[in-house]
């Protein structure tokens, strides 16, 4: 404890009267509780907004579902009843709340399966794809950002910043299609290297090392697409916050102490420039489970994004509501974590 409070202790003139928890880099129980309550509040508000928005969506799912299918009038009435369309909106709201808190999310209209089961089967592929893509995008973006920001205007900076921004402005759909055509069909002498879609090849043994390699093989193109269009945000934020640090006196001090350039950068400049990047990274992690609707659709990746895409047409409200809860919940949880982590990382933030 002594180590963690000594900076502030010196500022406070060594007075012990100030409770250490308020001054230190630790998170107090009261603060934690406040933040958690705030997060729960935002989650509840999101649920209400989400429900209202979904209730406004024009839909007669009973008719959409039974279209082009022989159904009797009695069956239509039964279907409406089964779907709960005949109930007042307040009853539907409480059922929605109940479904949310029990985690089963009701029964998908379109897939005729429980939404919980559908989400459970789709969340793994999404986390795999988004996790890999985000990890690579963050590492690559931060590393390039540090190198570019340390010497702004250098050839390195101009090349990588230019490339990143160009890729950032490319439509994901288009880039995905291009990669698909080049690497999956093959162009000229280039043979096909990667599969055109899906997460695994049904002809490959679905267990063991062969399966892992097969999934890795399918992962390359969607992952590459996502990294290409997203790493610019990490690069730019890291670069600009590092550039902001460049003129600071503490860096001159560090150099005067005899530290080499790379040491000054790594030990002094980068830690101070990291904070904005942390925010962006956590926002990205919060959005992880949201998947990437476009990329998942182009590459037929069986994740949550694709599930949402498939559920929109009917529209399959229980499915959309269920995925909405997962998406918003995850963003809120990771924002909470980012808030808490801030206090650990940056002594200046005191809540």
């Amino acid at each position, binding site marked *: 404890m002594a180590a963690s409070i000594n900076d502030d202790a010196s500022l406070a003139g060594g007075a012990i009267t100030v409770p250490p928890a308020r001054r230190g880099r630790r998170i107090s129980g009261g603060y934690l509780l406040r933040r958690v309550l705030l997060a729960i509040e935002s989650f509840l508000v999101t649920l209400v907004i989400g429900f209202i928005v979904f209730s406004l969506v024009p*839909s007669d799912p009973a008719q959409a579902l039974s*279209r*082009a299918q022989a159904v009797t*009038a009695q069956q239509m009435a039964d279907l409406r009843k089964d779907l709960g369309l005949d109930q007042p909106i307040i009853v539907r709201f409480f059922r929605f709340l109940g479904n949310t808190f029990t985690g089963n999310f009701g029964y998908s209209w379109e897939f*005729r399966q429980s939404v919980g089961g559908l989400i459970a089967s789709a969340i793994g592929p999404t986390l795999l794809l988004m996790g890999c893509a985000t990890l690579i995008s963050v590492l690559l973006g931060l590393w390039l950002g540090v190198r570019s920001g340390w010497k702004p205007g250098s050839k390195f900076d101009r090349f990588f910043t230019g490339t990143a921004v160009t890729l950032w402005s490319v439509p994901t759909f288009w880039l995905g299609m291009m990669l698909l055509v080049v690497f999956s069909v093959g162009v000229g002498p280039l043979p096909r290297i990667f599969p055109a879609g899906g*997460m695994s090849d*049904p002809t490959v043994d679905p267990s063991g090392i062969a399966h892992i390699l097969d999934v890795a093989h399918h992962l390359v193109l969607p992952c590459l697409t996502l990294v290409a269009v997203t790493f610019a945000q990490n690069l730019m934020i890291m670069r600009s916050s590092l550039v902001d640090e460049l003129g600071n006196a503490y860096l001159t001090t560090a150099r005067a102490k005899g530290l*080499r350039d790379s040491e000054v950068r*790594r030990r002094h400049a980068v830690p101070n420039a990291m904070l904005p990047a942390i925010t962006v990274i956590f926002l990205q992690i919060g959005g992880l489970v949201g998947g990437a609707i476009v990329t998942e659709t182009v590459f037929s990746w069986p994740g949550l994004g694709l599930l949402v895409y*498939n559920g929109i047409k009917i529209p399959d409200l229980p499915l959309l509501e269920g995925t909405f809860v997962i998406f918003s919940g995850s963003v809120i949880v990771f924002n909470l974590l980012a808030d808490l982590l801030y206090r650990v990382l940056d002594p200046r933030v005191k809540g």
Partner: protein
Amino acid sequence: MAGSSRRLARRVGAAAVSVLLVGGLALFGQAPAASADSASTLIVQGASFKNNFNPWTSYVQGDKEIITNIYPSLTYLNDKQKPAPYLADSWTTSSDGLTWTFKIHPDLKWSDGQPLTAKDAAWTLNLIMTNKTAATSNGALVAQFASVEATDDTTLVIKTKVPVADMLYLNAAGGAQPGIPIVPQHIWEKDVNDLAADSTLVVPTVGYGPWTLTDYKANQYATLTANKDFFLGGPKYDKLIYQQYNTPDAAVAALRSGQLNVALVTPAQRASLKDDKDITTYSVLGSLFLSIEINRGAATKSGKPIGDGNPLLKDPAIRQAINLGIDRDTLVQKVLDGQGVASGAFLPQQYTDDWQPEEKITFDPDKANKILDDAGYPKGADGIRTDPKSGKKLSFRLGTHSDSAQDAQVAEYFVPWMKNIGIEISLEPMSFSLLNENLAKANWDMLFDRWGSGPNPTYLLSTQTCATLPDDDGQNGNTDSFYCNPEFDRLFALQSTQVDAQQRMDTFHKMLQILYTDGNNLILFYANGLSGVTTNQVKNFMIGSTDSAGNYPPQNVFLNWRTAEPVAVESSSTNVWLIVGIIIAVVVVVGAAGTILVLRKRSTADAKE
């Protein structure tokens, strides 16, 4: 100090190498083209399956395609689109048409070895008649059944309330709308209280048919294994895989590289595949029409007007003029690239013995203009006609599906054609669900509409009967375009009891004529179904022979997947690609190693500064 900088470089290098290593391994681990597998595998595009292979509740086309291949039916649709013996070897009808007696093929066994008898069929049909969940998908098909009974293991007797003309179609496997699947009683008996539960889907599925469902991954693929002893003739392939691709472009990319053997293609893709010697494209007579429906005064069951449709469209002269102002042949040429049939008939020609209208409506803008002139709608200065009584312009809304390129393309021609006869059209793109909602509330003037039918058109014709109109509160409707004509309803009821196929077809012709002359659904065309097949890998895929325009009759997954045969593959080509792949991998790895060396050197240089 220098050490830490080098450590960083080393770490980055190690990370890069491991990424490349995984990539390289993936390359080497790459399975060669599917057909090089020792077991022959046919990989087809799973268009829209939801991985809900529940025979009671599934209603999605893609799921039904699989269900009809893994559960048997009493009959199946043959290559002439007529019902042929399957589980039922033969059948007889009583003279009043109310009793059907089916002789069930003896000595058949479910895939788990249990006997498959008439009792399973009786149990299945009875459950659909009595259990609400069991009726989800096929309940309407048994609505006229009075009783179903298995008098012994090989005899099934179905008694109906009224003569049921389409009995053999209702029970037919294959085709565009597969009939009722028969399921094993001993498997499903224990689940009758929760037939829709997720847990009822177990692989391998116990069923009977040319295929057995042996594996599936939600939203990815379904693997079916051949039942080589299937008594109507086993499949030539060992395995059939439905693989899901969500965009047509991805599917065609997979087709080009041989990862997929059969895919649906668009007219533009068909043109681009013409030069590919490994792929043959086929066009199949379509059974799905595109039409523009007209709200000519929507009303409820009791005749109360509803909605905000433009009252001018009640005038038959305006509707006739609109119909005459459409050039269907041009639409087929321009929008479908010639791959379709221009027709104003409510049912596709292949299922109606090539019915032709008594007096064909052809594109004639002059006549359309004359009709409107005679009806007293003078053109204004801007070329748009006005109704002198209300002082309102002949200006109508046309709802289009915002996600349909075809709607937009047709509208590009339709709007100027209408302007040419003095009618103004304003386009209103809407989502699928909004358009359907407006349709049900009758808040529309004109809408794009699509419907399809199989060889048994009962359901599609039922959408034009008065029974589909909503109640006075606007609820419980299932109408297509608020059409209601007592004479049409009378014929509809008549055909449903005409067990004699020829008499029934004559009634269909009368109904088609009624819809053609006064229907509110202006049929524009039937787009051909286009598919691409990797004929360097697959042969004998298509069934039937082409007509004079080069179109195949409707295909049938119950037959296609069975007749398709693998082509012997030369393995050399695969090896060449593998070698090229290895060379590229080596180049990449060496290049990356070089880059890492340079980077390391640079960071050491940094350290020396």
